[in-house]
């Protein structure tokens, strides 16, 4: 008996042991996957070779040869496809960040208004959400673009702020601030303010925990962040000059410009995603039981404190995870840019460069990796935030 129980599991072959079996099967599966990819890889390379299509990443160093209307970094047609990659990437990031920012603000406002006791306001928001999230985003982008390019011709621009801003179908032209001598001090002042604020907020919290006295952290922060740089500017005599846009020939020259392609994409991404965020925010707030508010009131907390310290922390727990996926969606949806010719990553690097070089596989791989990285980065930041606001069970 005893020998049997001890020898029992050992006696059969290794295959009879559950753990070994699991390992063997996993190794086998892994092996098959690797073989599969090697097969695809070599097959692709062989076929590309048979067609005479070159492979490799050498094209990144060859000149792109085409111009891009919008770029955050200096770029001209003689630069390489590698540089096009960065031009496109920054254009994608800028519209995504601007979109996330605006959609969050609009979405939160809408979500709160949706719960308004005012019937009209609540219904209006209801229709906003229902209409916008049910119309395909592509149509919305085309709609905004169509609206923007029916603005007047540059020669009949709408002017405001005393002829310094010009709005027409080719964009919104604004004065460009140019830093003069002593501008550095303003930057230093801002940095100092940004360092002081978190320290101050920590000290205020400590003091409150120790003595119960509160400190107006928010308003002091605002005053510091605005006040210090302003003070520095006053001391250095406002060292900023402006470059104004001027109509020269066909178009305005100089200044800064927001082109209709960017604005249309940004608007569309914002209002579309905001509709979803509004719903998320509404659901999040409604998820906090009303008893919590009543309990807070009965303890004598002010309504604003109740919102800030009781409702929001609990609502955010519900809001943040789905909010993250909206941010991811917005970023990926920005690849619809090509429909109106906004030079994002997919339309420049993943589009024109792909077409000119024919390196479809390399370019698509790089582009996919970029979207994957952006998405993972957003997820990581949101997860970190989520952890910080998560309720700590005591």
């Amino acid at each position, binding site marked *: 008996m005893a020998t049997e129980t001890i020898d029992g599991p050992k006696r059969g072959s290794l295959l009879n042991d559950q753990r070994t079996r699991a390992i063997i099967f996993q190794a086998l599966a892994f092996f098959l996957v690797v073989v599969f990819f090697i097969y*695809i890889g070599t*097959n*692709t390379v062989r*076929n*590309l070779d*048979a*067609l*005479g*299509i*070159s492979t490799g990443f050498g094209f990144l160093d060859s000149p792109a*040869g*085409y*111009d*891009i*209307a919008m770029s955050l970094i200096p770029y*001209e*047609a*003689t630069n390489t496809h590698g540089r096009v990659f960065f031009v496109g990437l920054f254009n994608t990031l800028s519209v995504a960040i601007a979109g996330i920012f605006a959609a969050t603000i609009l979405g939160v406002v809408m979500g709160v208004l949706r719960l308004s006791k005012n019937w009209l306001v609540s219904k209006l928001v209801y229709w906003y959400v229902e209409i916008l999230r049910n119309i395909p985003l*592509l149509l919305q982008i085309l709609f905004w673009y169509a609206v923007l*390019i*029916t603005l007047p*011709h540059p020669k009949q621009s709408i002017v405001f702020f005393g002829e310094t801003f010009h709005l027409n*179908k*080719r964009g919104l032209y604004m004065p460009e601030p140019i830093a003069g001598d002593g501008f550095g001090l303003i930057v230093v002042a801002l940095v100092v303010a940004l360092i002081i604020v978190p320290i101050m907020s920590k000290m205020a919290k400590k003091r409150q925990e120790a003595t119960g006295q509160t400190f107006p952290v928010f308003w002091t922060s605002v005053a510091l962040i605005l006040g210090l740089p302003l003070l520095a500017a006053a001391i250095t005599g406002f060292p900023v000059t402006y470059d104004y846009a001027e109509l*020269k*020939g*066909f*178009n305005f*020259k100089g200044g800064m410009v927001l082109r*209709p392609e960017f604005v249309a994409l940004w608007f569309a991404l914002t209002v579309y995603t905001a509709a979803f965020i509004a719903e998320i925010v509404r659901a999040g707030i409604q998820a906090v039981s009303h008893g919590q508010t009543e309990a807070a009131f009965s303890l004598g907390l002010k309504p604003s404190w109740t919102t800030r310290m009781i409702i929001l922390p609990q609502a955010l727990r519900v809001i943040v995870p789905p909010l993250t996926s909206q941010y991811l969606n917005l970023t*990926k*949806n920005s*690849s*619809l840019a*090509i*429909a109106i*010719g906004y*030079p994002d990553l*997919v*339309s420049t690097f*993943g*589009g*024109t460069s*792909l*077409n*000119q*070089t*024919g390196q*479809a*596989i390399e370019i*698509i*791989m790089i*582009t*996919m990796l970029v*979207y994957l990285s952006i998405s993972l980065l957003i997820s990581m930041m949101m997860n970190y935030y989520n952890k910080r606001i998560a309720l700590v069970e005591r």
Partner: protein
Amino acid sequence: MKLGKFLFAAAAVTALSTGASAGTLDDVKAKGFVQCGVTTGLAGFGAPNDQGQWAGFDVDFCRAMAAAIFGDAAKVKYTPTTSKERFTALQSGEIDVLARNTTWTFSRDVNLGFEFIGVNYYDGQGFMVRKSLGVTSAKELDGASVCIQTGTTTELNLADYFRSNGMSYESVVIETSAEGRGVYEEERCDVYTTDASGLAAQRSTMSDPSEHILLPEIISKEPLGPLVRHGDNQWGDIARWTLGAMIVAEELGVTSANADEMASTSKNPEILRLLGGEGDMGAQLGLPADWAKNIVKQVGNYGESFERNLGTTTPLALERGLNALWTDGGILYAPPMR
């Protein structure tokens, strides 16, 4: 979703499975039609007509191939492609041949793995502006907004031209010619640039064609022609000689009206060889003996196709110009059929 489409293209290219090398003719015969890549719609070159049927100069080439292979010009299926998608569509095998006013360039021929089978339209890049701008030369375009289709040779020529003339411009990038017409008519751009033939096509469909003029400068060579995948020589030969037969037919005066008659009455050995009465050129291509007769009968010779789709009686009103036969002062010339 664009990203989705993009990924699909990725998958399609990665799946460039077998069949890259040979056997396109067998595949085409087995499925019973030629899958032809055309434009998304460009008047005169390739666009659906009032009956919803594809028609145009490039479409005629697709029909000619079907006539040669099946004896029936209708055995074609069309895949509309944008200038950007067209090459992936051909590389991945989604289409058998691309006939979509595509410029024959070194890099497309060598690096993208294609074979251009000839030139069916000799063209060059031009500029179109509104008359009301008062511009008379491309040299006056400094600072203008220029509408340009993405994924084209014209995008590269434009950058070169403005750079070498020390001028600047704002590019307004469009994906299809329909979109381009829209933004140009809205005056998002001052100038529309593409192949001169494409400009004529675009102008013919504007709300008032007479409001727009082409500037005199032609800034590039754009030999437009059909192309196939590199590596299947038989298929390449069929495409090359489909175009050759259309041109030779014009040289010999064989038309859709007289092809049958010529085949039986002609004493000219060249004509007899073309129409299948003598020799075995059809068999050498793996096609029926009357392959070229079917092309001319059902589609017409080069000149007929040109006049029907692009010529002076059409809204495009293009002269033959460079595309006249070499014997008429043009440079259109097909190698001898023997």
